[in-house]
């Protein structure tokens, strides 16, 4: 039996009576008080998530930029030091090895924040394709990562507003952190990268400032409501970026692994598409459920904000337009759903 890894905040989660579950080889909190109150806290005010299980890779060297331009789908020429970008690591078939955020630390130095479950795969892939003048290092164990998310998160942390996908080194309650204007909830917020030794102190300060501790359960329902894909569910090595609706992340005018296949799929039009849907009947869709006509649910849950079943799944392109009625096989029962436009949950402004 493989031992589960623990983040620097493990003892904090135990002290808060979190329900711990295995996730991607880590022992992680799935909930504290409950998924629904935690979800609502993030939509209404501020929640904090331990996402220290995510991987951090540093890519450095005079040819690091050139190297990553050939590996990642999005165009790194669009970002300067201090800026970040959502992007994909693709294989020769245009499949998605991982979705990640690239932070440009310097002209020739990048930090890649990758999914916990893909940390080793991404590291190995980059090492195998490395070119002279670029060096890839796995620095994951040096850091803790806290996501502080919600409409009042910036104010509660005493930070100033900043554009999305920017970052800066800052001091927060006396702790040196990298403040990243990114997140996975659809709300305003930051992700705080901190040396592992300071992670527990930072967690305590963030709780003192009124953030509600939130587990992976709420993280999943929050991202699903705003249609952010989850690698392993909605996207993977066998699904291409165009069918997944991630064409906007792919700079098809540059050369990177799998670009020829992605250009072909774009030109021909994908045979199936990833669509968001809302249940019309009372039922909760789950991953793997068949959709009549040849489709399949890839993520499904209950939406605390809509108080309905919601999900995403691949359907033949002719079923992919908004308002199309879908029939989902919920453990042998036919239940109706309707294709909607992204996001499923629209944030209340002001």
């Amino acid at each position, binding site marked *: 039996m493989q031992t589960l890894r623990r983040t620097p905040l493990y003892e904090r989660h135990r002290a808060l009576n979190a329900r711990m579950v295995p996730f991607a080889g880590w022992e992680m909190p799935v909930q504290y008080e*409950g*998924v*629904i109150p935690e979800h609502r806290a993030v939509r209404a005010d501020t929640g904090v998530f331990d996402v220290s299980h995510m991987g951090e890779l540093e890519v450095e060297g005079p040819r690091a930029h050139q190297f990553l331009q050939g590996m990642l789908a999005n165009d790194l020429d669009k970002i300067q030091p201090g800026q970040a970008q959502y992007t994909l690591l693709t294989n020769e078939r245009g499949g998605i090895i991982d979705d990640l955020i690239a932070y440009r630390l310097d002209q020739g130095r990048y930090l890649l924040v990758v999914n916990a479950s893909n940390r080793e795969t991404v590291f190995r892939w980059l090492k195998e394709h490395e070119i002279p003048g670029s060096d890839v290092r796995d620095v994951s164990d040096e850091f803790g990562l806290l996501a502080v998310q919600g409409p009042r998160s910036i104010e509660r942390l005493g930070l100033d507003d900043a554009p999305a996908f920017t970052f800066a080194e800052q001091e927060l309650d006396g702790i040196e952190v990298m403040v990243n204007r990114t997140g996975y909830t659809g709300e305003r917020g930051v992700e705080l990268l901190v040396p592992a030794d300071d992670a527990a102190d930072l967690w305590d300060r963030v709780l003192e400032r009124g953030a509600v501790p939130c587990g992976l*359960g709420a993280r999943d329902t929050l991202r699903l409501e705003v249609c952010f894909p989850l690698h392993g569910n909605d996207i993977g090595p066998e699904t291409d970026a165009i069918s997944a609706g991630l064409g906007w992340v792919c700079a098809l005018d540059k050369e990177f692994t799998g670009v020829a296949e992605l250009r072909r799929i774009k030109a021909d039009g994908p045979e199936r598409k990833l669509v968001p849907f809302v249940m019309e009947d009372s*039922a909760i869709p*789950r991953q793997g459920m068949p959709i009549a006509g040849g489709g399949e649910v890839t993520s499904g*849950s209950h939406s*605390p904000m809509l108080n309905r079943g919601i999900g995403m799944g691949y359907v033949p392109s002719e079923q992919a337009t908004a308002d199309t009625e879908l029939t989902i096989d919920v453990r042998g*029962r036919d239940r109706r759903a309707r294709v909607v436009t992204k996001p499923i949950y629209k944030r209340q402004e002001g």
Partner: protein
Amino acid sequence: MAADESYPEDLRYHPEHDWARIEDGEAVLGITWYAQDALGELVHYEPPEDGATVSKDSAYGEVESVKAVSDVISPLSGEVIEVNQAVVDAPEKVNEDPYGDGWLIRIRLSDPAETDALLTVEAYRELLTEQ
């Protein structure tokens, strides 16, 4: 608000964490505090139809939390004479009051002798200590 842990003395229990309140050849059925706590906040209840036949030790419905779905096992056999529509509309009632407002179905017993095989509260508590 979730209820505090409790197991009423006047109920009989099934090892799959279901309870039965037996009266006059009928029984009201539900899931125990332990079951609702393990599942978390319920967000869906898929009930049987009125008039359906339920069998001891078999599933008669489903309850779902955000993360998981679970069959509900019948502790006794009989015919469904009432479904708790209030729980269909607001499944969180099971978390708030698992033995009261959170009941799931009422059945007419087809074999009242089956009740002898159910656990007393002492025996069920004993079983929980082994979980």
